């Protein structure tokens, strides 16, 4: 098992190297001059040219890329932000925790609501509960997050005054953003749980378990859900990994200082080091989440564990 984990960690390295190359290339060919954007539109042409020289922006692509990779690999240095002059790693350290908190709470909301509803829908297929929950799922997937966010804010903050509308200091602040962002995930997980459960419920071994006289709860939770979990974990894992990339719209509406906003602001400013560093960290986080999901499979299903060598 440890060997498997080790192999997976090593495999991450070429993936991350590929990510740095792709992002660097994309930033290089994107129109827009970082010097002009960082210095502001009042800056003189001489000042812009001087800045470009100082930052090495006039060097050829491979020279710039080589310089970046040298700093990264030899010194673990993600560079300094063009606009704020702060080390990129500090900027990311400041905002990534907020995104992790938001992603975690959204997933929790999605799982706590989605899995039970999915299970009940599967057990009571074609019942009124099933119809309603599928309709809600469709609504959840279709509703744009910014629209839902503003609607919830108007209701719970303005009309009722129960919850704060922006900021990120207290647990109460997490509720509206988590619900807005989690709505789509709830829908996906509900549907995934339902379809996965339906596949499993009609299996012969479930009939056998019932025939053996086991309590229905045990049949559903231990035997059916246990076998239905794999696709649900896959889906949840992908969702969580995506959320870690920063939910820009949610962060903007609720003024959450997360990595999504940092990325968008940095791209607008052509703050290459911050974009590069941010994408690298997000790619790393996504890879780790994937690894953890694969390890979770092994925990849930011994047949899979046996395959991990």
């Amino acid at each position, binding site marked *: 098992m440890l060997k498997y984990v080790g192999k997976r960690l090593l495999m991450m390295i070429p993936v991350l190297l590929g990510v740095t190359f792709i992002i660097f290339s994309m930033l290089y060919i*994107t*129109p*827009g*001059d970082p*010097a*002009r*954007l*960082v*210095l*502001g*539109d*009042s*800056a*003189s*042409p*001489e*000042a*812009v*040219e*001087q*800045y470009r020289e100082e930052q090495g922006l006039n060097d050829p692509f491979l020279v710039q890329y080589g310089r970046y990779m040298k700093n990264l690999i030899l010194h673990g240095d993600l560079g*300094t932000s063009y*606009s*704020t*002059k*702060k080390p990129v790693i500090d*900027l990311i350290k*400041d*905002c990534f925790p907020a995104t992790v908190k938001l992603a975690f709470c959204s997933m929790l909301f999605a799982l706590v609501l989605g899995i039970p509803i999915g299970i009940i829908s599967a057990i009571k297929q074609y019942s009124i509960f099933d119809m309603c929950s599928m309709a809600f799922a469709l609504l959840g997937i279709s509703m744009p997050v910014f629209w839902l966010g*503003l609607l919830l*804010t*108007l209701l719970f*903050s*303005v009309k009722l*005054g*129960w919850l*704060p*509308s*922006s*900021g*990120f200091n207290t647990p*109460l602040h997490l509720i509206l953003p988590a619900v807005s962002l989690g709505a789509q995930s709830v829908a996906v997980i509900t549907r995934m749980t339902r379809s996965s459960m339906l596949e499993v419920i009609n299996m012969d071994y479930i009939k056998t378990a019932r025939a053996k006289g086991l309590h229905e709860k045990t049949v559903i939770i231990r035997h059916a859900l246990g076998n239905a979990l794999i696709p649900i974990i896959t889906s949840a894992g992908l969702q969580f990994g995506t959320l870690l990339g920063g939910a820009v719209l949610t962060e*903007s*509406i*609720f*003024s959450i*200082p*997360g990595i999504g*906003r*940092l990325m968008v*602001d940095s791209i*607008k*400013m*052509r703050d290459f080091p911050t974009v590069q560093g941010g994408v690298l960290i997000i790619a790393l986080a996504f890879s780790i989440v994937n690894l953890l999901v694969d390890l979770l499979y092994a925990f849930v299903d011994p047949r899979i564990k046996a395959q991990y060598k």
Partner: protein
Amino acid sequence: MSRKGLMRFLIAAAVSATALFGSMSVSAAETTQDTLTVAMGSDATSIDPVAVCNVYSSNIMAQIYDTLIDVAEDGTVTPRLAESYEVSDDGLTYTFKIRQGVKFHNGDELKASDVAYSLKRAQASAAVAHIFGDIDPDSFEVPDDYTVSFKLQQQNTGFIAGLANTGASIVPEAVVEAEGDNFGSNPIGTGPFKFVSWTKNDTIELERNDDYFGEEPALSKITFRIITEATNRAIELESGGVDMAFDISTNDISRVEDNSNLQLIRKVDNQTTFLAFNCEKEPWNNPDVRQAISYALDTTAICNAVWRGVGAPAAGPIAPNVKYHDNDLTPHEYNVEKAKELLAAAGVQEGQKLVISTNERQERIDMATIIQSQLKEVGIDVEIEVLEWGALLDKADRREQDAIMVGWTCQTADPDMAVYAVFHTQSNGQVGNNYANFSSEKVDELLEKGRSMPDSDDREAVYKELQEEIVAEAPWVFLNNGEVVVGAKANMKGFEPTAFGYHPLYNIYFE
């Protein structure tokens, strides 16, 4: 769940809910409020005065630092860190007497050497060189601890107004040298408020400087909260989450106005939004064709439709609150027949294509859409190209545009800043702010003359002539002047917005 279990659950839920909501209620303040929470649309980039030039950063700088002088809109100079100043007869040498006993937030005394250091930094900085670039960096003299003098490389009457800009804030030399780039995140100034903390994209906290040399602020604390969505800023203001919100959007203005607990504070600012033709490209290189477009556009109707009463239709290149703005200029006459005549005389064919490039700001796209339909009536076929800001600047730098919709702000209280960089031939032909690629000997002459003359009726006459000449040449279609729209609690007093986009908050108090 059994019925008993359900009842227990419901009671427990009700009790917890009551406790939760009960603890959220805020007890009424019995003393006058002495803290201010302000909602701002974007985070500051740096609090180092010379590192950046944007209003969000300047909003913080304006509370933490002092400048040598303050300059009113009509050009009146009030001493601040400087007790007095002199300008030599040739207009090149400036000598300042510095106030004694002023302390930085770390307790060090302000000396003339700090002033020299700060201004030298401003001259060398890429971000603010457009305001301070005329300073001769080798000319600084500090004969004693409270006197500093320096020379300009060329005469510039507008220079003194620039010294009131946050770029000329006075910083402690020793601290800046020690901190380097870090100074922008941990600033020290002499101002009425001290920096406490900065959580990126979230909050910036300041506290009162009890040793301030000037009038002690009534507020003990200012907190800036970064709330990017305009609607959310208005919501936070309504719900009491903030005491003041900058940049209230047009959609929210009536909500704030109709709320008796809130007030709306407005002032036309120094920003001009315009459509700049590429004056080097046919047929836009013909002033008659450009005039024809101006006649074909009803800019008043466009502004009313898009801005709904915020700001005002622009009549010329100098905004209304800037010194020497020509009050006789009115928004361009709307005359479709005249437009058609001029176009026909210039040989412009029916179906002439015009690509208007703009960035993603919704108001600009909306204005371009109305322009498109109005120009159709005179046979001009407009295509609207929406580009991201960096890409738009790139296109303008490569001089590929037909016409570009942008804005320009006069950042000091002097008209030179409104016109020189955007119309002088010097800025043409390279990466810069002459978005219209415009060049005119007469305009150049007037710009240079206006810059070097001392304030007087003659100078005013030069700027009047300049504005008339630019309107006649029509390199721009003048669209609108912006407006500062700030919402605040009704009992907040002492706030005077400036036309620059950043505002002093230290005179604010609550009744």
